[in-house]
């Protein structure tokens, strides 16, 4: 409701700016219309939709809600966009929940899908134009190759030219633009020889046609555009899919905080918070800005920031950092630093610095193109000079040089990497692993050491009762009643363990935020909560809760639940011969427990964030290629320092930004699979380069010797491109 109020307020402001008299006559209608524009479109993420029935179910359920104008599911992006002026996401999420679909609100501001779409459509349009031009020119070229003579040949060449020149000018624009940028920066990229070949081939062909010559390379020029654009598009698609999913992860956290303005709760954007503001942090919510607790007591989960699995008690005066999660009671904070100055943002900046260090990695493709451009130019220049010197015929020499440029043009080279990366990342995406960085696959293929974080990575960060059977049967109903009254993670775990036990009739149940739950049962006081509150000084090795019934006190131990697939993942990585390590900021007992359960022999506990990064750096210095898998803020520096890095989707934004790959599901098994796919992809990339080089070795001597014909160029170009693409599909 608060949102609606802010919107009307701001549309009032807009109204004053508009100078149309009709608006003043019908201010209410205008306001409603304004609001429709502003809040009309909602975007929800639907991670579980996958089939035709899901589309129908979701759309029908949403359309049945009064106020919903339209709902359209996009299955490729797993999203639904809803036009529902006056409704908010929290009105619609329960509707979907009831029919069994998980839904999350997405922040439309964080989804810049339209800009990305436009770029994709732009490349597709150029592919379409060059494809249709290529087909038409090819029809005419086939006639010339099969023996059209004299006037007919010239006519066909002229028609080809009339189609090819505008096509090359339009479809080749991305290459010309990028080549021009490279030249101005004093570099020779892959696009310089491409542009040179396109321009030279078109110019020579026009000249030859005007002279009534036998060979014209219009088909080759257009075909070059087509194949290279396909390579560009594949490359773009891979990045666009990764980016849109990454954006979606960011958009999941709608950056809103509840501020107290004059005693009233108002929803404000986190970016608008300034030091001195009072914000309310409800139980279960993430702290939006750094601040000091003013009122309220609660417990704080710091695991994402420090890796500790035990909650910290919060009382007035305690300083909290953005990103921590409030567990039990509502807290009011006075903001000390917000947005750019908050500790979270400062750490993110540190990560950005570490990231640029990894930017030094040059991909195989970059290295290949760096070596390639000078070689091609020298070769073309040498054949021009050679033929000019031997025959003294500039026209012939130029023809040969153009043929060399066309034949060596990196059609296959341009497809070699994008085709493999597309095939591999598509495969990993279906298994729930998102690749954010183009060179990530290559780096992942070299990995020989895997370093895991514990809390939130190998474990879910969700406690479970260590030994449910050890709990006194007589006390179980009381424990169930007390646990059921609280939303604290330990209570919820206890309630889950005691499912099926009928809760005892405990009266006067109340939760004391930050301490526990208490009530009265059969005339005696019963409590479930912290040791000091229960009245015992017993210490526990890990997370624990104490139950007091009258005078009897009982300890309930909890362990962290392993992420599904964690055991299989560690075992599979070891089978592949990788060294597996565990570095955690948690205490030794908890870490040792997990290490033993997973069979990891190398582990360290109580590791500080900078020590993690240092440990990774030291491993790298010793020649190891480290894959870091982590989720917390304490892992970000290590994630950025590692050779390759993966973080789960539940990780903090900063950690996801720092890593190359994001694990979308909760299962850890794809991590081991990713290493296999990456190695297979690296092998295919090398094979593809070998194929392209082989084709050049065979074709270039013909071109230099002056035997190349347009037919040969066309055949060689399409054969190499198709073989490279087919080879890429073999990624397993």
């Amino acid at each position, binding site marked *: 409701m608060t949102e609606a109020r802010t919107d009307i307020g701001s549309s009032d402001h807009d109204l004053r700016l508009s100078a149309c008299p009709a608006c003043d006559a019908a201010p209410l209608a205008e306001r*409603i219309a304004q609001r429709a524009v502003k809040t009309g479109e909602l975007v929800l993420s639907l991670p579980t939709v996958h089939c035709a029935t899901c589309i129908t179910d979701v759309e029908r359920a949403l359309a049945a809600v009064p106020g919903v*104008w339209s709902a359209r599911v996009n299955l490729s*992006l797993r999203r639904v966009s809803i036009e529902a002026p006056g409704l908010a996401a929290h009105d619609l999420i329960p509707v979907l929940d009831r029919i069994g679909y998980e839904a999350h609100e997405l922040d439309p501001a964080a989804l810049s899908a339209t800009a990305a779409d436009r770029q994709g459509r732009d490349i*597709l*349009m150029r592919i379409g134009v060059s494809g*249709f031009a290529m087909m038409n020119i090819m029809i005419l070229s086939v006639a010339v190759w099969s023996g059209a003579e004299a006037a007919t040949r010239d006519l066909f060449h002229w028609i080809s030219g009339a189609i090819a020149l505008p096509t090359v000018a339009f479809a080749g624009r991305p290459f010309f633009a990028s080549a021009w940028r490279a030249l101005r920066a004093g570099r020779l990229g892959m696009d310089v020889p491409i542009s040179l070949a396109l321009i030279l081939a078109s110019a020579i062909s026009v000249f030859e046609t005007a002279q009534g010559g036998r060979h014209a390379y219009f088909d080759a020029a257009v075909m070059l555009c087509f194949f290279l654009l396909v390579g560009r598009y594949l490359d773009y698609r891979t990045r666009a899919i990764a980016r849109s999913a990454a954006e979606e992860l960011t958009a999941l956290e709608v950056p809103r905080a509840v501020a107290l303005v004059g005693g009233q709760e108002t929803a404000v954007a986190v970016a608008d918070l300034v030091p001195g503001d009072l914000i309310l942090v409800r139980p279960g919510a993430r702290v939006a800005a750094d601040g000091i607790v003013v009122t309220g007591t609660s417990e704080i989960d710091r695991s994402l920031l420090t890796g500790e699995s035990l909650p910290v008690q919060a009382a007035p005066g305690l300083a909290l950092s953005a990103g921590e999660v409030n567990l039990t009671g509502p807290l009011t904070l006075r903001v000390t630093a917000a947005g750019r100055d908050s500790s979270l943002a400062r750490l993110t900046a540190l990560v950005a610095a570490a990231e640029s260090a990894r930017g030094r990695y040059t991909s195989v493709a970059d290295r290949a193109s760096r070596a390639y451009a000078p070689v091609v130019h020298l070769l073309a220049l040498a054949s021009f000079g050679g033929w000019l010197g031997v025959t003294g015929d500039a026209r012939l020499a130029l023809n040969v040089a153009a043929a060399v440029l066309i034949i060596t043009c990196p059609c296959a080279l341009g497809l070699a990497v994008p085709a493999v990366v597309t095939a591999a990342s598509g495969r990993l995406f279906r298994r729930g692993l998102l690749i954010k960085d183009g060179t990530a696959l290559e780096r992942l293929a070299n990995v020989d050491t895997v370093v895991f974080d514990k809390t939130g990575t190998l474990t879910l960060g969700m406690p479970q009762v260590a030994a449910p059977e050890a709990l006194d049967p007589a006390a179980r109903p009381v424990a169930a009643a007390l646990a059921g009254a609280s939303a604290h993670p330990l209570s919820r775990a206890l309630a889950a363990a005691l499912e099926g036990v009928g809760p005892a009739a405990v009266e006067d149940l109340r939760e004391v935020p930050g301490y526990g739950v208490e009530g009265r049962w059969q005339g005696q006081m019963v409590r479930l909560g912290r040791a000091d509150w229960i009245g015992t000084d017993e210490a526990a090795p890990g997370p624990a809760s104490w139950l007091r019934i009258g005078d009897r006190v009982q300890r309930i131990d909890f362990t962290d639940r392993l992420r599904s697939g964690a055991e299989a993942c560690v075992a599979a990585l070891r089978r592949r011969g990788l060294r597996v390590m565990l570095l955690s900021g948690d205490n030794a007992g908890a870490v040792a427990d997990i290490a033993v359960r997973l069979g990891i022999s190398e582990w360290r506990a109580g590791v500080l964030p900078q020590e993690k990064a240092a440990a990774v750096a030291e491993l790298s210095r010793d020649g190891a290629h480290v894959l870091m898998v982590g989720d917390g803020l304490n892992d970000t520096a290590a994630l950025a320092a590692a050779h390759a890095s993966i973080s789960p989707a539940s990780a903090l934004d900063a950690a996801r930004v720092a890593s190359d790959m994001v694990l979308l599901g909760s299962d850890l098994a794809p991590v081991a699979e990713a290493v296999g796919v990456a190695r297979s992809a690296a092998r295919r990339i090398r094979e593809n380069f070998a194929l392209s080089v082989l084709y050049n070795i065979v074709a270039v001597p013909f071109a230099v010797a002056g035997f190349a014909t347009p037919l040969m160029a066309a055949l060689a170009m399409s054969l190499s491109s198709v073989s490279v693409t087919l080879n890429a599909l073999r990624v397993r």
Partner: protein
Amino acid sequence: MEVLVFLIPVSLGLGALGLAAFLWALRSRQYEDPKGDAARILSKEWDDRPRPAPDKDNDGS
């Protein structure tokens, strides 16, 4: 060979037609959700157009 006078324009015209169809499909956003379109063909729901907007009474304030 006189037939070429007709055949060449015809072949070019067909090509242009195909290109125009492709550009139309691209501009009307028919490549936005290939997976969804593949699934929708199996559904009996009428979804040719967005549902016509209901009167403003429903628009809760």
